Each structure stands twice: as structure tokens, then as C-alpha cells.
């Protein structure tokens, strides 16, 4: 058995990945993955917020009043998000303009509140910080993959540098305009989930109910 600290960090990377297994945080994964640069900045912001939120919520977990705990958690999370947003506006203005409202919407990212409720409320600070880091990185690598695929296939570029010469520039590559639209992120995430679940069949969910195929009277045959 691995050390719990390492386990808290490693598990969310693939085994319990917040996007592919828990299917949380999909909204932002669609919105900010048009280019790799925005995906990277968004990932960094989420990692910071998630780690600090997990840490600070875990710190006061033993004194958290039960009936207003969600409000307190959201207060902490939103303060951290505002700080992250202000930082971006000060040090990466162009990026913050491109990400527009989506930085602010980290508050509503289910991964962060989800980890706070299910992990940080029950575990010590250091373990919670590792869990936050792990989940943040688990979210980040999916965003980076989706962002890279979308930017390369949609524009032929990666981080603004030409990878595939487009036919408009005299190359052979015909950019796929679909990749610049949000639904393409759905397809890529779907493919990733398919790959991961084929490699790790344990992740596949069992059917919750079976469709009733028999028509009345038919089973009396």
C-alpha cells in the first residue's frame, strides 16, 4: 500500500480523475479549451484555488457549523477566486480578457466544492492539500490535451506556433472549423473517457436500470 499522502495525490490523476470519472467541471472544460494557452492559464488558476480552498477548509473543518457549512465553503472559495482573477488582471491581462467570465466562474466549478465537501471536510490539512493538487492536476492534464487537440486541428498551430501548415498558408492542412466550437471539446473528452475506461474496465459504470423491452401481453406467450 502506498503512503496515503502519495495516494491522495496520484489517485485523481487518472484513477479518480475529476473530469473523466467524476464528470465534474465539464462546463469550463468546454469553454476555455479553444487554445492551449487559455487552457494552461485556466488550469493554473484552478490548481491554485482548489489547493488553497481544500487546505483552508480542512484547517477549520472541526469548527465548521453544520448548517451553514456550504455557505462558509463558498465564501472561502469565492474569495480565492477573486484573488486569482485580480492576479490574472495584473500579470496576464490579455489572457484574463480572453478567459473573461470563466475565471470568475471557477466559483461554480463542481470539482472545488465537491472536493471540499467530500474530502477536505473529513481529512487533515496536508492530506487535503495533496488531494487538491492531485485533482487540480487531473483537471489540468485533460484541459491541456483537449486544448492542444483543438488548437492544432482547428488552426494548425500550437501556442501560436505553426505545427501543421494550413492550405491558406500554402500547406496541405485543412483546419477543422468544428474544433473551434465548444461541442468539439465534448467529443474529445468523450474519446478520452472511452480510452481510459477501456484500459481500466473497473471505471465503467453498471447500468442503473434496464429498459423495459417487453410489451404487455408478450411475456405471457
Amino acid at each position, binding site marked *: 500500500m502506498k503512503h496515503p499522502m502519495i495516494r491522495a495525490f496520484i489517485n485523481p490523476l487518472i484513477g479518480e480523475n475529476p473530469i473523466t470519472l467524476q464528470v465534474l467541471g465539464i462546463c469550463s472544460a468546454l469553454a476555455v479549451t479553444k487554445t492551449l494557452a487559455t487552457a494552461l492559464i485556466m488550469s493554473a488558476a484552478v490548481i491554485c484555488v482548489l489547493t488553497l480552498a481544500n487546505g483552508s477548509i480542512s484547517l477549520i473543518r472541526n469548527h465548521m457549523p453544520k448548517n451553514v457549512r456550504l455557505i462558509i465553503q463558498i465564501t472561502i472559495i469565492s474569495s480565492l477566486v477573486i484573488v486569482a482573477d485580480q492576479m490574472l488582471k*495584473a500579470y496576464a491581462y490579455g489572457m484574463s480578457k480572453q478567459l473573461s467570465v470563466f475565471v470568475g466562474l471557477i466559483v461554480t466549478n463542481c470539482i472545488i466544492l465537491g472536493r471540499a465537501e467530500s474530502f477536505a471536510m473529513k481529512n487533515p490539512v496536508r492530506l487535503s492539500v495533496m488531494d487538491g493538487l492531485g485533482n487540480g492536476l487531473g483537471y489540468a492534464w485533460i484541459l491541456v490535451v483537449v486544448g492542444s487537440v483543438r488548437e492544432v486541428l482547428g488552426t494548425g498551430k500550437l501556442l501560436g506556433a505553426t505545427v501543421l501548415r494550413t492550405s491558406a498558408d500554402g500547406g496541405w492542412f485543412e483546419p477543422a472549423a468544428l474544433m473551434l466550437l465548444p461541442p468539439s471539446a465534448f467529443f474529445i473528452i468523450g474519446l478520452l473517457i472511452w480510452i481510459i475506461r477501456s484500459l481500466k474496465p473497473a471505471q465503467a459504470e453498471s447500468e442503473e436500470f434496464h429498459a423495459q423491452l417487453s410489451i404487455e401481453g408478450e411475456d405471457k406467450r
Partner: protein
Amino acid sequence: MPEVDNRQSGWWARFLAMPNDRPVKTLAVTLAVAFTGAVLVAVTAVLLRPLQIVNKELDRSLHIEDIVRALPRGGAGIVVVPRVVDLTTGDYIPGIDATRFDQRQAALNPTESVEVKSELDIANLSRRSRKAVVYVGSRDGKTELVILPVRGQGYASMLYGYLGLSEDANTVIGLSFYEHAETPGLGALIDTAQWKAQWRGKRVSDGAIVRLGVAPRRVKPDSDEAAYQVDALTGATWTGVGVNNLLHYWLGDDGFGPYLAKFRKQGG
């Protein structure tokens, strides 16, 4: 032994030992968290404010540069000079440092601004400054461009932008919005290079009325309106209407009309 412990543990330890659901503790914990959050947010906002202002200014000047670059030969050799204009008379006002003049602040100042009459206030400004800073671009002593600051209500926010006109004051060089909070993916598309590129070369008026604006549809290339109008933005009707309103206001008599008339006559 327990007695000694009790005496040693102060109010803090007793507070921590309280059950979490007791109202006093709930209130105290909630207030403490809110206070800490507020301090954190306030301190960051105040500390980072100077940097953010620098960034905003830089971004604004990039939008001006963008319009200059749309001139022939990429705007090479163009010298841009900011100048303060009296909007009522349309004359330049000497003796005011245009780089220091804050038009937005002036619009809020009762002595520096005038109320926009409601029947004229299509762009929803309510007040506008008496003076404005325009940017005149010239090459080898010949005026080629004037950039006007424009603003108006869009769908979700006030749109702040620059409209660049060529020396005849009737041909658009570029229209660029540097500040808005329109819906991402819909109204915010006013900020994309693709949409902005359409404005270049459009005519302002047909001699009688201002016709420049956003069409309510995709513009047919061979139609009469193609010389004046750009494609609508799907799903952003009110942003397009807002852009039209602000263009009509600022190009009209209550806006830069008097100035543009003189600019056209004198060639700057």
C-alpha cells in the same frame, strides 16, 4: 487535575471546545471567515490596482495602434498626436495636455460634462464630457487619419471603443472596442479580428444621413447597403443595435458632428 486544566484553558480554548452548532459559535465562525475573506480580497485588489491600470492603458493604446496599422503600408511612418476637442464648437482646444485629459472622469464631473437630451440619447449615455480626446494621425505632414473615442450601451455593458476615419472623415479605417462585458461567444465577438476586419473601407454617410452600422442580417455583397454596413452577429442582436446607436450618436450633431465638419474642410 481537571480543575487546574479548566483554569489554565482561557476563553479561546473554551470557545473551540464549544459544540459547532451552538449559535454563538456558528455566528463567530461565519463572521471570522467572512472577515478573513474580505481582508484577503481587499488587500489583493488594492495592491494590484496600479498594475491593472497600467495594463488597461497599454491595452487601450494597442487598440489605437491596431487602427493605425490598418492604414495603407501598415501605417508605417504615421505620427499620432492626441488633441483635445471642444465637442460643441468642434475646435481644437490649445493648452490642455491631451495625454493627461481623462475623458471618462470628465463625463462624471458636473462642470466638465453636459446632460445628453433624452431624445438625442440613443446610446444611453445620460451625460457626456464637453471635451474629447481625438487622435490625429499624419504622414509627412499630411493628415491621413482621425481616431474618435466612442462609447454606448450594448446589451450587457457599456461599450468603449475607437472609431478610425480617413482624411475625408467618411471612410472607416477601423472600429475597435477595448472595454465591454458582452456575453462571451455572442456579443463579445465584437472584439474578434474577423468581425473587426469588416469595418475597414465602409462609408459613413451617403451625404445626407449616417448609414454606417451593423446590418440586421448578413450583408449581400452586391447590395446597396454593402458599402455602409457589416454583418450582424448571430445571437447578439442587442449588441449590434448598441453599436449602431453609439455610431449614430457620436457621428451625429450632438457628438463629433461639428468637429468632423471642420476636419473635413481643413483636412485636420
